């Protein structure tokens, strides 16, 4: 069970970091 939780946390972190980078890029573009 913990294995699933840890893998899910890792993938979620990856998606959030990616969305954050894309968001920053849009912000830079807008500025």
């Amino acid at each position: 069970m913990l294995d699933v939780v840890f893998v899910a946390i890792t993938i979620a972190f990856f998606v959030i970091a990616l969305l954050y980078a894309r968001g920053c890029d849009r912000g830079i573009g807008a500025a």
Partner: protein
Amino acid sequence: MSVPGLLQILLYAILLILVTKPLGLHMWRVYTGERTFLSPVLEPLEQAVDRLTAVDPSKEQGWVGYTFALLLFSVVGGLLTYAIERLQNVLPFNPQGLDAVSPDLAFNTAMSFTTNTNWQFYAGESTMSYSTQMAALAFHNWVSSAAGIAVAIALVRGLARRSGNSIGNFWVDTVRGTLYILLPICFVYTLFLVWQGVPQNLNPYDRATTLEGASQTIAQGPVASQEAIKMLGTNGGGFFNANSAHPFENPTPLSDFVELFSALR
């Protein structure tokens, strides 16, 4: 402080200054894609890796693409490390028959090594099998160093370039850094450590009886190859719990000097 101690610090500083320019020039050639003196040997290997991973070395990435590549590389490497730790009891190179690493420790170690933090919350010799030490932990000592250098180089490119939307190619930077900088130095470094007495084998631990009659376990394994990249990549995560204070990681005054030097080179 004693005179030999002062002389050692002086020698250390002199060597560090002497190595800076040739190593810096070599790194400059590596990250600008120029040929180096190692190209005749390593270029076929680099091209094979590029072909295998479908990377076009002439194609550069913007910062989001570079970040995406770094994150993807890290998440896959992190999950792979986690899987190796959790499955080490059924994987080969486990002569001590060590159990799978517990989920929380495996996750902590996987994430820590992936991010080059290398928090060693375990005693290597009683927790990690040889396959985990080699394929998971030493692997991250290599690639998290190469990825870290690549990101630093990308940052420098971003500052130095006056125009343009690209900062290099993460895959190219990481592969070239690994092949042309870390691999040749570590190859020689590992042989040096073996010469100094660091073990490099896949044997089970030896049992010894002391003069007082007590039984003692002599832990060993593929130590030299991991020690070299541990110091060169400024990583933690030594083979043994005591790290470089262990006589099998750092057996002589000469090995101590070289290990200190390689950590700051």
